[in-house]
């Protein structure tokens, strides 16, 4: 039996179907958390933002309607069957990215849950086992990037999204997206120049 698309699940969630919503959360939780961690660089912030994004998803579900996909959205179409789920995905990740970029303007929560997560030793939420000096340097250089540049890099490079979809998530033109990416990579090259030369062409 063919699995329900995200769009179909979202429509069912809009009718109050909690099981459909739970399936959506299960499908997107890991990727959403990873993306938020890449943008914020902080595990607790990322988890808080992901919860807020899913809350909005549930609240807005009754009104949610898939928008018309641009005819030239080849990035989404290239992914085959996944392309069919990209409308909900684009919407969810757009909400998520906006929450990540807006988070500094919001008051920070003080509560039991927040205290609990801050106490974690891996507060930035990246896998400690894979860390070496190069890894730390790359992470530090990325942390220095302006958030919009980091978000563009997270979407295009680490999540592997097409430029149309990534630009839609950031609510900018493709030209503006490319400008963010070029500036991000240039800054990283400057920060990691010695390592890049050591790595050379390899």
């Amino acid at each position, binding site marked *: 039996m063919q699995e329900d698309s995200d769009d179909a699940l979202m429509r069912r969630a*809009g009718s109050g179907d*909690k099981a459909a*919503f*739970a399936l959506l*959360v*299960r499908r997107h*939780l*890991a990727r959403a*958390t*990873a993306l938020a*961690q890449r943008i914020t660089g902080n*595990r607790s912030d*990322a*988890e808080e933002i*992901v*919860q807020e994004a*899913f*809350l909005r998803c*549930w*609240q*807005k579900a*009754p*009104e949610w*309607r898939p928008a018309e996909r641009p005819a030239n959205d*080849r*990035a989404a179409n*290239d992914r085959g069957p996944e392309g069919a789920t990209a409308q909900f995905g684009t919407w969810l990740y757009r909400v998520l990215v906006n929450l990540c970029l807006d988070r500094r303007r919001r008051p920070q929560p003080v509560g039991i849950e927040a205290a609990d997560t801050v106490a*974690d030793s*891996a507060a930035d*939420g*990246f*896998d400690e086992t*894979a*860390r070496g000096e*190069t*890894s*730390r340097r*790359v*992470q530090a250089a*990325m942390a220095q990037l302006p958030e919009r540049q980091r978000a563009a*890099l997270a979407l*295009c*490079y*680490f999540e*592997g999204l*097409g430029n149309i979809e990534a630009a839609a998530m950031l609510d900018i033109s493709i030209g503006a997206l*490319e400008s963010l*990416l*070029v500036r991000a*990579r*240039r800054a*990283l*090259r400057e920060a*990691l120049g010695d*390592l*890049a*030369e050591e*790595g050379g*062409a*390899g």
Partner: protein
Amino acid sequence: MNRLARFRNLIGAYGADPRRWPPDERAEAEALLARSAEAAALQRRAAALDALLDRAPVPAAPRIEAASLAARISLSPQERSRPYRYLLGAQDKFWIRAVGLAAAAIIGFVVGTTQMADLGEPANSPAPIDVAEISPW
């Protein structure tokens, strides 16, 4: 536009791997890569940075459990629009504006025609003054 300049921008934005390049520009960029030493050098430089980015730490798995998160969130009320929005559907803003404009036009027409009627000569208007009778000449 200069193809090498576009290639430089493309590779500067998306990195060395052609699979990351926009599909509608990939073929042309790869053709340029095959015949231009400068393009090949740009790609090697981008590949060195890509290799570093690939060593960026991987985000850890979420500590939140999907089922419990969904269960907790779905206790919250959902947002339902006002009934007229359902009646008007996705084009509601257009129809709201159209109805508003039509109402303004009708009111304007009614007010305008009423005032035009007032401009007509009143039935009990006083007799016109004969200017010649009061003239000293």
